[in-house]
């Protein structure tokens, strides 16, 4: 929430946002499963202008060994932006922001993955942002869940994710890059619908406690919409042959 001055009208008199959406509408989301040959599981998501590739390896051995846990598997997550993914070319070395997001996404996925089944091993989730357009961490989390499922990793539920926020004094779903720069609040949410658990939650910006509650509720609606798209993507890969041929 830079609160930068801008000439953009974030919400017009008819409640329409600068990119033509209604306040409670997400951007277009498409997910493709199994896009990589070498990864054990993979997914490619386009979430508005975000383009993100997720690849999963594991369960596999941990090197060095002392990093492994004899009682459970461990989950490792790396969120990484390509140099060309943002408007100013990004230095290839991992930034503090990328390190923090990697940690937050790991902790958003951990409640979903049944790690106890694979003691002494690691499951690696690699998230590569090819193009960033506001809301990369949510889109990356969505792709990660699908890639984990594609890798056959047993899960309690899939984590679906979408942000809600506030711009031009209105609560809005799925904050885009422009709204993130000039808006009032951005709150990424990660959710496991079947278990009713919120596993990712961050906030930049200012909200009253009342707005806070409404904002989560709005975000959860977005999460559930994404959840359907995630399930359809998996269905398409694993069951489409029966339907279409």
């Amino acid at each position, binding site marked *: 929430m830079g609160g930068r001055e801008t000439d953009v009208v974030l919400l017009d008199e008819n409640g329409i946002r600068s990119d033509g959406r209604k306040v409670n509408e997400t951007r277009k989301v498409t997910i493709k499963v199994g896009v990589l040959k070498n990864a054990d599981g993979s997914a490619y998501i386009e979430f508005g202008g975000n383009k993100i590739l997720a690849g999963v390896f594991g369960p596999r051995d941990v090197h060095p060994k002392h990093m492994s846990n004899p009682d459970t598997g461990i989950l490792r997550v790396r969120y990484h932006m390509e140099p060309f993914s943002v408007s100013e070319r990004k230095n290839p070395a991992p930034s503090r*922001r990328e*390190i923090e997001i990697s940690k937050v996404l790991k902790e958003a996925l951990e409640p979903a993955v049944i790690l106890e089944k694979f003691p002494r091993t690691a499951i690696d989730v690699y998230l590569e942002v090819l193009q960033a357009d506001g809301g990369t961490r949510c889109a990356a989390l969505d792709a990660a869940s699908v890639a984990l499922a594609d890798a056959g990793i047993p899960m309690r539920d899939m984590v679906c994710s979408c942000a809600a926020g506030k711009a031009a004094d209105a609560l809005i779903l799925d904050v885009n890059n422009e709204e993130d720069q000039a808006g009032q609040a951005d*709150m990424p949410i990660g959710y496991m619908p079947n278990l009713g658990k*919120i596993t990712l*939650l961050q*906030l930049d910006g200012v909200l009253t*406690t009342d707005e806070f*509650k409404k904002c989560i509720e709005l975000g*959860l609606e977005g999460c559930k919409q994404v959840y359907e798209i995630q399930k359809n993507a998996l269905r398409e890969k694993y069951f489409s042959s029966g339907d279409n041929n």
Partner: protein
Amino acid sequence: MTNLSIIDKLKRSKILDLLQEGKRIDDRALDEPRPLVIDTGVIPHANGSARARLGDTEVVSGIKVQPDKPFPDMGDKGIFICTAEILPLAHPSAETGPPQPNVIEIARVVDRGIRESGMIDLSQMVLQKDKSVIGVFADNVVTDHDGNLFDACSYAAVAAIITSKIPKWEMKDDKPVLIEDQASDTPITTIPISVTMGLMGEFIIVDPNLDEWECLDARITITTNSDGNIVALQKGGSDGFSLEQLVKCSELSIVVGKKIRDIIKQATEGSK
């Protein structure tokens, strides 16, 4: 929880048993933070400083103010940068070397709480638009680690900022030149207070100490401003929260945050 060691599992089970009876391992109420002691002016050569002792967790925060270049596209604002380090003498497990992800997270969460609240009016800290601005660096060092470094660092940094002074610079030949003995108070608009809560089983506990911290299911840090609004938030840990739990946490963050804000206000009043 499966990634806990056997010792941590035993500890967790003991702590949970106590929580069932409404008790905590150090006899606090569930919504009760540890005693907070703030000392200001502990580093007189810095532009501001404070030591926060939250239970047995201790943090020293020092403020350095110096001219810098503005961030790109933010030429009309001063800059604010917040760091954190767990000194190796703070705990036997602390490591030297480049900052680990958990420390980077602490620094960034403390930074965001202060930045997003607009605590410092950075628009007053421009020497020459797009070229030269005043930078405020808040460096937090943990000297004793007994859990909940998020809040201890945040309280130390906030107290240090409140008591800090901004020296005066003037531009000469495109370069900032220090005008001696003309420091003014840092322009403060609000006092952001973070409150970190842990989830264990169905229980929410405020300001977990290290024993509790190590066997939490999940945690959340909510920062509120002087108006009682939420300005930053960070969920962590290997489990999730229900919507109801989050609403409860947001309420706790306002109630507890108000008490902490009063302690910090009182501790910093004299030193302004």
